[in-house]
């Protein structure tokens, strides 16, 4: 049953792939630590370079997955030290992490969060190893109708879980799907939304899309933080990054519980590290905050979201590898990266490309060990990147974005398109949208339409095929419940207990 894992370790332990896992871990921790550059930005910037280097698919994926998991480790640093989350997954980490640093416990806080990251990620990687092959075996039975229903479910769960405003999440996703429609229609050869521009015939290039959407809009957003650096207050001294066994044991249940929560949230399509961090923190607060110490520098309040966001990162690989449905914005980008290699992730990947699926999973084990080894002793060194001023950071991002897009086709039109998409992304963010649903919609949109058309071709146009099988009917019901329950439950509850309303 675990043949794929043994083969995977063969792949992951080759010198090249070990080196790439290490490089990914280092770069990921750096990207995660830098405020504003999260895992998606890091991967967006690195992906074209990995492609240019001519790396085989599994090696490129190992590098990029290393960046992803590394960024979840790195995101905690600016949360703890500066009270500025390094990425979306580390928002809750600041709540108890920063008070700890203010008490002069920055070192132990960094150490403890590295250990909890490790525990959370380990739980989730084991979960991934156990469940992914099982789910893949079920998913083999999926036809186009089931996949279509699954994507509807993915969008529903995304709308409910991601962001504060389901309507805006929905709009962002629809805009993403519409952007995926640009270009020649594979079924009929008809040009859609190309406006006669030859450059758009092949659709909007994935690299152009993510670099514009994330890197360029981030540059514009960074202007707001102004000339001043992020450090309104002085960065507390890190000191020795040491965490005692007693402190770790004190938090063990918080870590394990949050690791499990993070894994489950990560597996749900469309929800990633930020949701996991929030859910685990509130759960842990409810369970163990007896003395009302959460928010004032409770170690468990730090361990919980850190374990959860790392677990969610690993968990979001489950739907991506087995169903081809990304579990988070970042895995959507990774999915796009795989598609550049003409690999469509899905249930067949475990049997047809075991070196990719197994190699990736094995490299997560390896990368997790590397990350713990890097982050315990070297947290102080990584924390130094927080002092990099914006006037170095921004030109650096600009250069990487330009070269990354230019080297695709040596084409300036792609660069203009990237800038336009960047302004679009900036506008969306200013209007209170998050960008992850846009990219999920963009990646899933084409697949969704393909599956819908294939299903209706099979049935000769009868729409009933979409909910004929038990699996697809179940997914439809689950999707509707997801959309209706958050609205319905409070009303039902308040009717039952009007005294509390």
């Amino acid at each position, binding site marked *: 049953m675990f043949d794929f894992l043994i083969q995977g370790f063969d792949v992951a332990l080759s010198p090249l792939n070990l080196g790439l896992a290490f490089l990914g871990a280092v770069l990921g921790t750096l990207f995660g630590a830098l405020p504003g550059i999260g895992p998606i930005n890091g991967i967006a910037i690195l992906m074209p370079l990995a492609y240019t280097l001519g790396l085989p698919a599994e090696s490129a994926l190992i590098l990029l997955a290393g960046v992803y998991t590394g960024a979840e480790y790195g995101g905690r640093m600016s949360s703890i030290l500066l009270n500025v989350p390094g990425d979306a997954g580390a928002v809750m980490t600041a709540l108890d992490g920063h008070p700890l640093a203010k008490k002069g416990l920055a070192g132990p806080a960094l150490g403890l969060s590295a250990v909890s990251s490790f525990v959370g990620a380990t739980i989730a990687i084991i979960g991934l190893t156990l469940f992914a092959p099982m789910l893949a075996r079920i998913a083999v039975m999926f036809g186009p109708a089931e996949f279509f229903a699954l994507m509807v479910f993915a969008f529903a769960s995304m709308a409910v879980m991601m962001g504060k405003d389901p309507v805006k999440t929905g709009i962002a996703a629809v805009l993403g799907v519409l952007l995926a429609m640009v270009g020649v229609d594979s*079924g009929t050869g008809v040009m859609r939304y190309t406006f006669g521009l030859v450059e758009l015939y092949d659709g909007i290039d994935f690299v152009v899309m993510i670099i514009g959407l994330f890197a*360029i809009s981030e540059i*514009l957003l960074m*202007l*707001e933080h102004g000339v001043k650096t992020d450090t309104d207050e002085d960065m507390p001294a890190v000191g020795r990054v040491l965490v005692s066994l007693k402190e770790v044991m004190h938090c063990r249940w918080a870590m394990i519980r949050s690791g499990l929560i993070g894994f489950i949230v990560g597996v749900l399509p469309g929800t990633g590290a930020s949701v996991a961090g929030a859910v685990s923190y509130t759960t842990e607060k409810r369970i163990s905050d007896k003395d009302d110490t959460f928010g004032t520098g409770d170690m468990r309040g730090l361990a919980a979201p850190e374990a959860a966001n790392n677990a969610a990162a690993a968990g979001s690989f489950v739907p991506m590898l087995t169903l081809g449905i990304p579990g988070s914005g970042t895995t959507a980008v990774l999915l796009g990266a795989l598609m550049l290699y003409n690999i469509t992730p899905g249930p067949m990947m475990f049997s047809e490309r075991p070196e990719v699926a197994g190699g990736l999973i094995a490299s997560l084990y390896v990368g997790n060990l590397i990350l713990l080894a890097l982050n315990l002793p070297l947290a102080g060194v990584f924390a130094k990147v927080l002092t990099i001023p914006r006037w170095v950071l921004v030109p650096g991002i600009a*250069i990487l974005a330009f070269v990354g897009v230019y080297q695709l086709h040596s084409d*300036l039109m792609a660069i203009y398109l990237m*800038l336009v998409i960047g302004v679009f992304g900036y506008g969306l963010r200013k209007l209170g949208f998050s960008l992850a649903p846009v990219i999920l919609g963009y990646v899933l949109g084409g697949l969704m339409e393909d599956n819908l058309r294939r299903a*209706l071709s099979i049935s000769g146009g009868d729409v009933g095929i979409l909910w004929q099988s038990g699996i697809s009917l179940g997914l439809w019901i689950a999707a509707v419940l997801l959309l209706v329950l958050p609205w319905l439950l409070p009303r039902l509850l308040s009717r039952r207990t009007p005294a509390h309303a």
Partner: protein
Amino acid sequence: MKLVADRILGIVLMGLAAFAAHQAWNLQVLFSYEPVGPKAFPLVLSGILALLALVLIVRPGKGGKWPDAGLWLRILGVLGVLVVYALLFSRLGFMVTTFMTVVVLARLFGAAVPKALIAGVVMAAGSYVLFTSGLGIALPAGSWLPELL
């Protein structure tokens, strides 16, 4: 104020939905082997978008904070720099344009002139070497170089 922004956005999105639907409706499909064709999916999407936009108009949410005039100028400045960077990228070559871009961007993000100049030289030369010899990416050297050599 924020509510107004969301209402305007809703109206714009309505327009976008109508435009997308109109474009899809007018697609000339010469042949199709399947019952759905290329029109249906974009049409359904436009419908969903219009519906969500309507919800936004009726129940606007919280928008972000909008930049003030000074910030707008700097945003336009950064965009201008990036557009000029793209315009001159292959004409003047990677090194020269990158140097200029880094200097101006660094200034816009608050670096002093000497620091910006040093950053420009180091980043332009460093990234050129890294990309061309390190990663084997062909970058434009600029059309003026051969004339000088």
